[in-house]
C-alpha cells in the first residue's frame, strides 16, 4: 500500500476516528484505525464495537492495500508534522511508514493486519430514509442534553426515536425532566419500532454534520445507521423499556406566561451564583405581571431578580433545579418562550413561541 495525501485533510478524519476509539489504555486492534487505499480513495474506519465510523477522502494511490495502526500515536505524529503532503506506505514486515514530502523525517509505526479488524455493521441502501441535516440536528439539539447519565437507569441513557403515523419524534428524559420534539415524516416504505439511541452517536452526528444538505438514516432492531456527506456512522441501540412518556405529558396547565428568553437565562445565571450547588434549587415566584427568581438564604447570602412577564393569577411559587430551566432555554432559539404551570408540585412546561412542535417538561422540587 502506498498513497499520498495532504496533512490537513487526513488529520481531520483521524481525530474523529480517535474520538470513536474510547479505550486509550489498552493496545489492541480496537485501539487501531483501519486505512484502506484503493481507486484514489482512502477509506478510514474506527470502532469501539458499539459505534462504528467510516469516512472516505480523496488521495493519490500509488499502490492499493490496507492496514491498521495505533490511532492515538498516528494522530500525535500527524499533528507534529509540518504542513504539506505526506507519503504513507506499508512495508511487508508490519511497518507503516510516514514520510512527509520534501523532509527528512521518517516514522515507522507498527501495524496490525487489516483482516484482524472487526467488521463494522452495514446495511443496504434501500433501508435508508432521508431528512434535511438541519432538521435532524435540531431534533438532537432539543433532546440529547436531557438524557440520564445514571447507568442504573440505562434505558434512559439514550434518546427515544419513534416513528408514528407520519411523524418522527425524539424524546429524552432523566426521570426528572423530559424533552420532546416532533417532525413531519412521510416516507411510506419505512417502518421501524421505537428505539433508544445512545448519545455517543448523536453527539458525533451533531459534531460532524455541516448542517446543510441531506442526512440518511436507517434503523433496525439492533442498530442505527447514519450517512451524510462522505461519512458513515453506526451504533448499536440500548435494549430496554423506555418509560411511558406520554403518560406524564400534562394534558392542560392552568397558567401560561410569555417571557423574554434571554432575560430569564441571564437572571438565572446571576441568581444561581448564590444557589447551593448540590441541589441547585431556585425559586420562581409568579405574581401579577412579574416573575421573581430568587435563591435560598444561605451562608453565602441571597440573590433575587424581578422580571416583567405576562402573568395574571394567584401568586404561585415553584422550586426547581435551575439547570433544568437553563438547558431548554439555551436550545430554544425564539426571542420569547412560554412557561406553563399549574402549581407548586406540578410539572412546568417550556415551549417556544414559534410553531415548532416541541416542549420541555421539568418536574419541580418540593417546597418547604
Amino acid at each position, binding site marked *: 500500500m502506498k498513497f499520498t495525501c495532504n496533512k490537513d485533510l487526513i488529520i481531520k478524519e483521524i481525530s474523529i476516528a480517535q474520538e470513536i476509539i474510547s479505550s486509550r489504555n489498552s493496545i489492541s486492534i480496537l485501539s487501531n484505525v483501519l486505512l484502506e487505499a484503493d481507486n484514489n480513495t482512502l477509506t478510514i474506519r474506527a470502532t469501539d464495537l458499539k459505534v462504528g465510523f467510516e469516512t472516505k477522502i480523496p488521495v493519490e494511490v500509488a499502490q492499493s492495500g490496507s492496514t491498521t495502526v495505533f490511532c492515538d500515536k498516528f494522530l500525535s505524529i500527524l499533528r507534529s508534522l509540518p504542513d504539506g503532503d505526506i507519503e504513507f506506505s506499508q512495508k511487508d514486515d508490519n511497518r507503516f511508514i510516514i514520510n512527509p514530502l520534501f523532509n527528512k523525517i521518517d516514522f515507522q509505526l507498527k501495524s496490525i493486519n487489516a483482516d484482524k479488524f472487526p467488521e463494522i455493521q452495514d446495511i443496504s441502501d434501500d433501508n435508508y430514509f432521508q431528512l434535511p441535516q438541519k432538521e435532524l440536528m435540531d431534533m438532537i439539539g432539543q433532546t440529547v442534553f436531557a438524557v440520564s447519565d445514571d447507568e*442504573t437507569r440505562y434505558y434512559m441513557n439514550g434518546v427515544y426515536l419513534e416513528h408514528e403515523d407520519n411523524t418522527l419524534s425524539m424524546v429524552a428524559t432523566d426521570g*426528572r425532566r423530559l424533552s420532546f420534539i416532533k417532525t413531519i415524516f412521510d416516507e411510506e416504505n419505512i417502518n421501524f419500532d421505537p428505539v433508544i439511541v445512545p448519545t455517543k452517536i448523536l453527539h458525533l452526528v451533531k459534531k460532524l454534520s455541516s448542517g446543510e444538505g441531506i442526512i440518511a438514516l436507517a434503523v433496525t432492531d439492533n442498530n442505527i445507521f447514519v450517512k451524510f456527506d462522505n461519512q458513515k456512522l453506526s451504533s448499536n441501540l440500548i435494549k430496554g423499556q423506555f*418509560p411511558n412518556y406520554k403518560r406524564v405529558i400534562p394534558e392542560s396547565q392552568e397558567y401560561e406566561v410569555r417571557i423574554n428568553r434571554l432575560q430569564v437565562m441571564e437572571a438565572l445565571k446571576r441568581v444561581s451564583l448564590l444557589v447551593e450547588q448540590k441541589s441547585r434549587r431556585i425559586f420562581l415566584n409568579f405574581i401579577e405581571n412579574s416573575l421573581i427568581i430568587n435563591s435560598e438564604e444561605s451562608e453565602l447570602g441571597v440573590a433575587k431578580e424581578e422580571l416583567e412577564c405576562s402573568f395574571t393569577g394567584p401568586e404561585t411559587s415553584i422550586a426547581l433545579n435551575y439547570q433544568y430551566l437553563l438547558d431548554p432555554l439555551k436550545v430554544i432559539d425564539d426571542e420569547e418562550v412560554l412557561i406553563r404551570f399549574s402549581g407548586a408540585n406540578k410539572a412546568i412546561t417550556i415551549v417556544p413561541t414559534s410553531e415548532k412542535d416541541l416542549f420541555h417538561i421539568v418536574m419541580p422540587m418540593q417546597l418547604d
Partner: protein
Amino acid sequence: MDAFYASVEQNDHPEYRGLPVIVGGASGKRGVVSACSYEARKFGIHSAMPATWAKRLCPHAIFVPVNMKRYQEVSRVIMNIFDDFTPEKIQISVDEAFLDMSGTERLFGPPEKTALLLKERVKTATGLTLSVGIAHNHLLAKLASDFDKPDGLVFVRKGEELAFLDRIDLKDIWGLGKKTLETLNAFNITTVKQLRETDISMLQKITGKAAGDFLYKASRGIDPGIHSERVKNRSISSEVTFEEDTRNIEGLHKTLLHLADQIMFRMLEQGYIGKTVFIKLRYSDFTTFTARQTLKHPLRSEEEIHRVALDLLKKKWDNHSLIRLIGLGVSSLEKKDSHQQIELFSDAADQHSKVENAVQIIRSKGRNIKKASLIPPHKNGL
C-alpha cells in the same frame, strides 16, 4: 448513655442486673462483643472483642443477642427528652448527642442544674443512667462526658480547659486512633501535656498535615470540628460473622438481603438518604476487603441496596474463598430534606420504597413484620 445496649438489657431483664452482660456473639461461638455491662468490663472485656475471648475471660457472663430494634426504641424516648431541652440537638449515634444549651439558663437554670434535670428525666422515663459533659465546645463536652462514667457529670469551665485535658489519658483524646497513638508514643509523646508542648510543624511531620493540625487543636481544647453539623461522611452499616466460614452463595445472598433490610429501615427511621453502597468481606485468614459503588440517585429501597450489594459481591469475591464475615452499609448519608426533586415516572423502585415506608410505620408501632424470604425455614420442614 452508659454501656447503652447492656444497660437496656439489664433494665429489661432485672435478673441480669449486677451481672456481667455481653451483647453480641450470643452463641458464644463466633461473632464479636457489641457492648458489655460495667460488670463485664471488670473482667477486661470490651466492645469489638471476639466473643470467644470474652467467654474465656468471663465464662459465666450472660451473652445476649443484639436487639437493635429495642435499643432504637429506647434511644427514641431519650432523644425526645433531649428535644424538650433544646431544638439544637446533634445526635451522633444511637446513644450520644450534643445539646446546644446556649441561652437556656433562664428556662432551666445554671448548667449543672439543667444536667441533673436531664439525667433525672431520662432515668425516670427509661431507668437508665447517662453521663453528661458540659463545656463550651463539642470536643471538651465529649471528653467531659467520658471522664466520669457511669452516671457522671463533669463541667469544664472556661479557663479550666488545660487543667482538665491534662487529667485525660492521651489515648482517650477523642478522634485519636490507635495508629496515631502508636506514632506519638514512638516519639515519646505519651501525655496530653507533652502533646501540647510539641511544635505543630513537628506534629504535622510525624502524623501528617491534617492529623497534626487536629492534634494541635485538640491538645489545647480547641474543637477541631469533628462533630459539628457539617460532618460529611456518615454511614449506616451492619455485619455478620458466620458461625462457620462459608462459601454458600445462596446463604450469602440471603444474609445480604437481611442486612439490606436492616440498613434501609435504619435509614428510613433516622431520616437519611444515601447513594453509596459498600460491602466488606473477611476471609478465613482474616484478610479483609471492601468494595463500594456510588449511584447517581439516592437509594430508594432495600431491593436496590441488595442488588448493588450482589453486584459488588460478584466483583469482589471469587465464589470460592471461605468467608468469615460479611458486612453491608450505605455511606455518604445525608439528612433527607424537604427539597427533594420530584420524579416524573414512578417506577418499581418507587413502589418498593412506598411499601418499605409503610412497613417502617408498622414496625415503629412495635409490630413484627418482615419479608417472607427472611423468615428462617421451619425446623421440621413445612
